[in-house]
């Protein structure tokens, strides 16, 4: 790859990172806290591309021997492996793959862990909880303060091999490579047809029913569903509460 092509690849790569960082696209892949770094990397890559192009141009302009791209004298070729940098460009710009969904969730065991402590819930009225928060309280607090309350949680639908429905949220520490699911089983008035990966807002009540994850034996609590309605994919598809 000669300098002009390198400059082009660097520029597009930087632009792709900027694009991902300036929209919500980056949230599909990394934690929200990485945003400034992603943007800075995009700026540096674009600066490198411009600097490369500028020195290339000046170099030619001053007539210090033929520049590159003229047939002879390509002393500065990068190894072929540099061509691979084109792959993430296509992946990020043309395909922009979605956040991890039910496929990854069902092949990984639930990652539910006991939190340091659980914040006190408001004394009465309907509750709106994070999915991992509900699961943690249901399993490790034995549903203390949850019984008899109307509870609303949000996540995407996933079906295991036997077709049993779960509501899942992927929890993330750094990037999607370390994302792990937290699962809540659905029972009661579950919609007859569930589309895997479809986001749902589910309202229901606590139930003591439990099961073990078939992948790692982790605990999966249940929610007795009374109502389920489709919602758009949230702004940040991952649960990042474990970062703090």
């Amino acid at each position, binding site marked *: 790859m000669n300098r002009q*092509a390198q400059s082009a690849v660097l520029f597009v790569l930087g632009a792709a990172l900027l694009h991902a960082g300036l929209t919500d696209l980056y949230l599909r892949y990394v934690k929200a806290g990485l945003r400034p770094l992603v943007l800075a990397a995009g700026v540096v890559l674009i600066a490198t591309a411009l600097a490369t192009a500028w020195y290339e141009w000046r170099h030619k302009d001053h007539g210090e021997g033929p520049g590159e*791209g003229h047939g002879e004298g390509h002393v500065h070729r990068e190894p072929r492996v540099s061509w691979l940098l084109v792959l*993430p460009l296509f992946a990020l710009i043309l395909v922009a793959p979605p956040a991890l969904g039910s496929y990854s969730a069902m092949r990984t065991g639930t990652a539910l862990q006991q939190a340091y402590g659980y914040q006190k819930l408001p004394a009465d009225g309907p509750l709106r909880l994070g999915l991992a928060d509900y699961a943690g309280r249901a399993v490790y607090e034995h549903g203390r303060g949850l019984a008899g309350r109307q509870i609303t949680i949000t996540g995407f639908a996933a079906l295991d091999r036997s077709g049993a429905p779960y509501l899942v949220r992927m929890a993330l520490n750094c990037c999607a490579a370390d994302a792990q699911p937290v699962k809540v089983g659905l029972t009661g008035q579950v919609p007859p047809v569930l589309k895997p990966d479809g986001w749902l807002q589910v309202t229901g009540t606590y139930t003591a029913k439990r099961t073990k994850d078939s992948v790692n*034996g982790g605990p999966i609590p249940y929610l007795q569903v009374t109502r389920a309605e489709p919602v758009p994919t949230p702004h940040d598809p991952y649960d990042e509460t474990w970062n703090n």
Partner: protein
Amino acid sequence: MSVTKAPPPTRDTGEDPRPAPRAEAGRRLNSPLVLTLLMLLVVLCQGPIRGALGAPVMQSWMTVFVAVLVQALPFLVLGVLLSAAIAVFVPPSFFARALPKNPALAVPVAGVAGAVLPGCECASVPVAGALVRRGVTPAAALAFLLSAPAINPIVLTATAVAFPRDPEMVVARLVASLLVACAMGWLWLRLGRTDLLKPPARHAYEGQGRGAAFWGSVRHDVMHAGGFLVVGAMAAATLKSVVPQAWLRTAAENPVIAVLALAALAVVLSICSEADAFVAASLTQFSLTARLTFLVVGPMIDLKLFAMQTGTFGRAFALRFAPATLALAIVVSVLTGWVML
């Protein structure tokens, strides 16, 4: 090949001049043209390509692939900037003064100095490469390469957060990582041969302004290490989305297999050292010693690092250095785990 360029070429370690006949054949299709054609082709075939990538396995693979890159590129860029700054603005005499004359002493000093590079392993490879080119004894640069990603404050804090009930894990990680880094440095002093390292390129900044040299170095390192980073990301994505996780469960039952399995997992997963503690914490079915092995091996040697080391230091070096590091890291982790955990 040397006929045309008037000024000396930049420090292009990996840019082997192509043998003339092959180069001539390659010339006709020059790379900007190939790049443009490739882009056009992909844009035109967007529909079919998306269709082919619609399967859940492919989608999940792509997501992890892109995620590893988006997450690692900022750190790679940071390391590359730092290494370019070292290469261009820091005079070689600085390191001669900063490090002890005796190489055997320089190794632990460089190992401890790794604590000041805040970043993950993607940043440390280019920096270590720049140190070697700046005349630092390779043994000390290697100790720095191995210790920096594991013992910097960000990584240790993440480890403490991930293991709230086992604070000794942080100390064990620090001790084991430093031990391995120093041991590898001393081992290199004893057994290493300079001809294994890719020869540092000629000093090439004469005849160029500092700006040109700096940006030339940044461009070269991003293209080079970035290409290898893509290889590593592909491997990690394949493991995460294709290999069944249930295999892990069987492995955890035997203590010896558990340690070896997590060491192997650290190598193939290629997770950033700032995140690996959280993954280790989630592998609850494994013993603490096995998880310590995961934390010590991961920042020192994994597929992505191996690919990047091959690019920076040469294949002959990486093929010997990586297995030795792996073996030593496993042994030291088991011993440390036995004593401390």
